[in-house]
């Protein structure tokens, strides 16, 4: 039995013998979360917001369940190993307290305790990342970034404040994925903690790489690079004016943000579904026939079928994954002859990563429906190698449509 589990048994016994204690624990936790929500409501900082965390909150909770920081430290060190404890975050009593309460909530099947503990842990994780990446955060620039530079699908665009993001997105999704792992596995708590850290961090920076000119680590995704770009260009929520003509719109080459990608995707998908009678050149169809050995008349049916308006959302998802996997940084990149190679290398040849699996699933969904509607066959009648072949063909057709809609 794990040490954390032993502590849990001890606390559970205590709580179950005294119902008032149980209710007090629950209400204390809820009140920390509700304090945070009041702070967020009264703040106009947007994504520059930082939660006010009081260390007495977690100490009071520990006292209530009759535990000390040392008890937790010992249990976590035994379960996670002393190497993990060398990391200051793993060894932080604040995180350990709320992780332990999370463990308790899940085992007691008490969603109030579970969700509140999870939220409290994420508040501090948010503060840490925010301070690391934005020591001085200008709320107007940040608002410009979240409203105008992030795509509509970006989490910061979907949720107005970090509090909402944590409560409505991170808490349910993380619990949904890792609650079972915590019950099954001794290291489940460690996994949810590290995953939470990664997810919060990804909001600020992702796609980190070494800049060949400066030799420094840079990221081209997340709030930080967009914020820096906006700051450099003097953009902020106060600088927004109504534009008189199309010429003054920022050009794509100026920057490639998530919103630009979204624009390309929307434009391409709209063009596909609004153009049900698109004519593909004979050369293109013949090339597909030669390369994928599919009958010419079937290719013609399938490429026509792609323009079915029912596929709007599916196509949107497929393009989103494809372009993010291809890591394109400009429109020119999509239009360059090397793009086909990039697609082959980063999308077709890439296997076993989550994005590729998701892309394949989406493509299979599309193909299944397309086959049913054109030749009344199902993918299950074909072997895996033919599934791959069909997916490759579909990607080729989608790239053809992408390029014909954005490249001149």
């Amino acid at each position, binding site marked *: 039995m794990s040490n954390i589990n032993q502590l849990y048994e001890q606390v559970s016994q205590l709580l179950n013998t005294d119902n008032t204690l149980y209710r007090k624990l629950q209400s204390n936790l809820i009140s920390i979360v509700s304090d945070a929500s009041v702070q967020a409501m009264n703040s106009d900082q947007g994504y520059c917001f930082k939660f006010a965390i009081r260390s007495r909150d977690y100490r009071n909770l520990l006292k209530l369940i009759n535990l000390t920081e040392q008890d937790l430290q010992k249990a976590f060190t035994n379960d996670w190993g002393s190497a993990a404890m060398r990391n200051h975050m793993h060894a932080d009593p604040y995180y350990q307290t709320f992780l332990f309460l999370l463990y308790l909530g899940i085992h007691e099947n008490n969603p109030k305790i579970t969700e509140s503990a999870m939220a409290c842990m994420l508040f501090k994780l948010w503060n840490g990342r925010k301070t690391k990446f934005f020591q001085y955060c200008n709320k107007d620039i940040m608002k410009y970034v979240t409203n105008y530079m992030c795509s509509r699908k970006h989490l910061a665009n979907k949720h107005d404040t970090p509090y909402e993001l944590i409560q409505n997105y991170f808490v349910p999704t993380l619990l949904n994925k890792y609650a079972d792992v915590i019950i099954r596995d001794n290291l489940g708590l460690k996994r949810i903690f590290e995953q939470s850290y990664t997810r919060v961090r990804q909001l600020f920076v992702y796609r980190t790489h070494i800049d060949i000119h400066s030799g420094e680590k840079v990221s081209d995704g997340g709030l930080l690079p967009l914020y820096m770009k906006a700051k450099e260009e003097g953009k902020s929520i106060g600088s927004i004016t109504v534009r008189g003509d199309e010429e003054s719109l920022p050009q794509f080459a100026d920057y490639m943000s998530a919103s630009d990608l979204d624009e390309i995707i929307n434009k391409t998908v709209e063009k596909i579904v609004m153009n049900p009678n698109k004519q593909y050149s004979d050369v293109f169809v013949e090339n597909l026939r030669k390369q994928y*050995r599919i009958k010419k008349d*079937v290719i013609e049916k399938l490429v026509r079928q792609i323009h079915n308006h029912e596929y709007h959302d599916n196509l949107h998802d497929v393009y989103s994954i494809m372009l993010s996997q291809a890591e394109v940084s400009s429109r020119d990149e999509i239009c360059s002859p090397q793009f086909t190679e990039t697609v082959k290398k980063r999308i077709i040849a890439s296997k076993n990563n989550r994005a590729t699996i998701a892309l394949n699933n989406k493509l299979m969904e599309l193909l299944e429906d397309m086959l049913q509607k054109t030749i009344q066959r199902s993918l299950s009648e*074909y072997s*895996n*190698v*033919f599934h*791959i072949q069909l997916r490759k063909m579909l990607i080729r057709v989608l790239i053809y449509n992408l390029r014909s809609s954005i490249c001149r």
Partner: protein
Amino acid sequence: MFYEQHENDLITEAKGTLTKLKNKKDSQKTLYEQFQQNWKKYDKGRSYFEEFTTESFESKLKVDLLYMDQLLQKLDNNQITEVEKLISDLYKDVKEIYEFINVKPEVYGKNITEKLINENTEKVKNKLSENIYGYLSRNFYDLPVEKREELYFERIKEDSRNLITEGTEAKEAIEYSIKKCLMEDFTKNICFPTTIKNRLNYLMEDEAFGDLFDQNSLRDVYESFNQKVSNIARIVAACV
């Protein structure tokens, strides 16, 4: 008049209902029938085969050419030049067929893999000869006469007759025709070992495959392949 019309309507309606009931009964299939129907639709080799890659074909080609080299040992230089051209043409078809059926190419023979190309010449020669003689024994020398006749009589009949008409002695003509048959079969085996051959046969006949993929072109390439194999076997059989 009114009653007659009414009666007719009733009869038509009753007939319609009976037909519907009959159709419903017919359409209710037993579990076995449903299983059979699904089994027919199911691609039997769906997850067994790996995807074709150019690299795997190149590896196979290297080993196959070592086999061919063994078969061509008794040919003179002119014949070798001629056969080499034919082999190069043959492998264009072989590659196309593998691409068509989208299966990772396989190498013929027990314990033979692409690693063979890194072995020393003596070892390569021994391993390949062992496989070639093994094949000939299994398919000809070790067979009783009746079995040989059963296997080859129909196939060699026409070739032998033509040769005899051209003035070749009967015994010689039959011997040559059998050798040709064996060479054909062996070359086909090298190109498409049994599992691949079965897959190819399956796909050439599979309805679902034919509805989506260009099955006729696959059959054409296979026919061209057979023709080329026959041309190669004709020359090689004359010298072994």
